[in-house]
């Protein structure tokens, strides 16, 4: 037994020595490297979870025999793809291109996973082609840096069951106070005004965004974390009240139970983003034609503010041998009318490109929503999204910790604000653990 233990220890020591060389230090990514075209045929890999991306890429591949893109699909970002990206980056075999939501970009940048595309042809000039706040998300406010190409945005509005509101003679709420009043009336009919999501912390962030709050600041040297500012506390208290009075359902989101609540008409509204149009249509098919979209309820009557939930970019990972070609493809994917039309059709993506907002597909009525031209509402919302919301560098962790607390809150074992306080402490601890400078 003893001999064996010694042998094991020796082997373990040897393996540490062997693997030691693979854990090299990561290089700095501040200076934009030169971005020259490669010679010959180039093959690129692109990992995404957007449904129908293959179709858009097929159009590109047909027109560009020398730059062939291969699509790999995975679960949505926080559902596992980001973790794969981080692992691949560490192992040095990341794909050339990846789908990354705006809220995760700082995390990838802190991990030195993104290629600065500023030197690549046409990238800096593309700034004018995109909705201002989306460009702010990919250049981190720096003039000569571009860490990803914006793809879509998630301006928020209120999806609601037009038929049920009408049949029960309840006015469509335009303020959050009216929303509460409507919730009471709806509860009296046996339904719920909406479902409070215990794990879509980015949706909650969108509601805070609309209210004018922001969770993170970055002054160039230090981060400031503020998950519990008065604005956030106000939003948390608002939803806590609805939870306490059983005016909202609390099904775990993205489950069959959740779909069922919408499909059977038990839940009446959803404060969601443009891409949510696709989620309702696929999750609640029996309700086709009964939905409509209105602007988000406001905190004060007459306000014009919208939040944003999601929206993503196409990033080129560190280690890609063909940043020039990758950037060229990413620009085409996110600005060309044909790609944006295809992505809107398959995934209801709402383009971040200004030209995309003028697409005929975005002007037409949508049958599932009773023929309403729903993107008119999102277009208006998009122009009302504050450009000042900043994401932190460890959002996956922040979401996990706040979600653990929100789960406790919906089971009446805590409150939303408790969850945010815990999230605040945990986020600062997680940043400290990685030597990310943070004000405590």
């Amino acid at each position, binding site marked *: 037994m003893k001999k064996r233990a010694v042998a*094991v220890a020796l*082997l*373990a*020591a*040897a*393996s*540490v020595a*062997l*693997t*030691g060389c693979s*854990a090299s*230090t*990561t*290089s*700095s*990514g*501040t200076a934009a490297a030169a971005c020259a075209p490669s010679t010959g045929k180039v093959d690129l890999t692109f990992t995404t979870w957007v449904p129908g991306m293959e179709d858009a890429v097929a159009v590109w591949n047909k027109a560009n025999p020398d730059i062939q893109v291969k699509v790999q699909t995975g679960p949505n970002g926080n559902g596992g793809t*980001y*973790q794969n990206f*981080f*692992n691949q980056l*560490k*192992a040095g075999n990341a794909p050339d291109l990846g789908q990354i939501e705006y809220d995760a970009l700082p995390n990838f*940048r*802190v*991990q*030195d996973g993104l290629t600065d595309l500023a030197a690549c042809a046409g990238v800096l000039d593309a700034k004018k082609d995109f909705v201002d706040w989306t460009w702010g998300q990919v250049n*981190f406010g720096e003039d000569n840096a571009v860490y990803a190409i914006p793809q879509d945005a998630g301006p928020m509005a209120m999806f609601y069951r037009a038929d049920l509101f009408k049949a029960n003679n309840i006015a469509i709420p335009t303020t959050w106070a009216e929303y509460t009043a409507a919730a009471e009336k709806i509860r009296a009919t046996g339904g719920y005004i909406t479902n409070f999501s*215990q*794990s879509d912390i980015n949706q909650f962030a969108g509601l805070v965004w609309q209210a004018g709050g922001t969770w993170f600041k*970055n002054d*160039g*040297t*230090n*981060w400031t974390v503020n998950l519990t500012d008065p604005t956030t506390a106000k939003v948390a208290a608002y939803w806590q009240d609805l939870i306490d009075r059983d005016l909202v359902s*609390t099904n*775990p989101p*993205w*489950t*069959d*139970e959740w779909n*069922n*609540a919408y499909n059977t008409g038990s839940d009446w509204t959803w404060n969601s983003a443009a891409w949510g149009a696709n989620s309702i249509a696929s999750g609640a098919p029996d309700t086709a034609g009964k939905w409509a979209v209105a602007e988000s309820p406001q905190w004060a009557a007459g306000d014009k503010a919208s939040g944003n939930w999601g929206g993503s970019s196409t990033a080129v990972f560190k280690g890609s041998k063909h940043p020039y070609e990758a950037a060229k493809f990413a620009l085409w994917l996110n600005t060309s009318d044909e790609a944006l039309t295809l992505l809107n059709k398959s995934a209801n993506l709402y383009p971040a490109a200004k030209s995309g907002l003028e697409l005929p597909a975005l002007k037409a009525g949508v049958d599932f929503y009773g023929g309403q031209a729903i993107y008119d509402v999102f277009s208006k919302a998009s122009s009302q999204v504050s450009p000042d919301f900043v994401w932190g560098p*460890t959002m*996956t*962790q922040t979401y*996990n*910790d706040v*979600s*653990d607390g929100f*789960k406790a809150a*919906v*089971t009446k*074992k805590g409150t939303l604000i408790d969850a945010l306080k815990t999230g605040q402490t945990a986020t600062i601890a*997680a940043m400290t*653990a*990685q*030597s*990310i*400078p943070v004000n405590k």
Partner: protein
Amino acid sequence: MSASTARFTDVPGDTRTARRLAGRPGPRPAKPRVQHKRAILIFVLPFGALFSLFYLVPIGYAIYESLLVIKREGTFGAATEVFGGLSQYVLVFQNGPFWQSVGRVLAFGAVQVPIMLGLALLFALLLDSPLVRGKKFFRLAFFVPYAVPGVIAAIMWGYLYSPNLSPFSAVTQNINFLSADLVLWAIANVVTWVYVGYNMLIIYSALLAIPTELYEAARLDGAGQLRIAWSVKIPLIMPAIVLTAIFSIIGTLQLLAEPQVFRSFSSAVTSTFTPNLTVYTTSSIPNVNLAAAFSVVLALATFVLSFTFLKFTQRKEAQ
């Protein structure tokens, strides 16, 4: 998945574990002198190479990673991994949710393992008894759940538990199996369902190895089937039962797939519900160094627990 976490995703009763532990016999007389050393070496080499590559090297890498800390300059400054001594381990021991999750799986194991092994033993004895008909059918029927991947089993049971959509919604609307009070035991039920058949098969094959003369002798002494089971079969298959118990202890501490699936549809399953889920969550930050430290501590705890159990049962046998 990084090498450091791959080792800990073994499911309970994993066959690799089985092979490794099966080769370790109990107490025995002094070894004879080893002959044919070179031949043994050649036979062991393929196993040894793969074992090192997929087992020892990842463990070594995890230990190595766990000794590093990240240093960087400025907001988006470049990160460097520097030697940090045992500082990650200090964080592990300060981490409340991790130790809560360890306590949770220990409670889980204390209840679930005896129930599962009790059922496995009962089924194995029934299959081995001359009184039961249709043995082949039952042997397969009990074993079939093990052929269902753990994730699929969890999704299926999650559906059965769901309050409104379950085919048994009359029950699930009144008893919420996904609530904080019950979800651990709902998961225990899934794990039991999957692994009873597997453990049954190990115990059953041990039963088949018992020479029939022993039964004959017992019968001549006037023992009935129950008495034979209790006084002859169970003592003789004790090593197999101990083996399944050790697999189960290891499996319990490494619970991942089932709680990971349940996390999406239960409000009670947090991102740190089990130790392995904590490791997974930590590595997704990504904080691989702390995740590696969690893994190493968990591996040591598993080793200590399994070894203590083995020693304890061996001493009992010796008495």
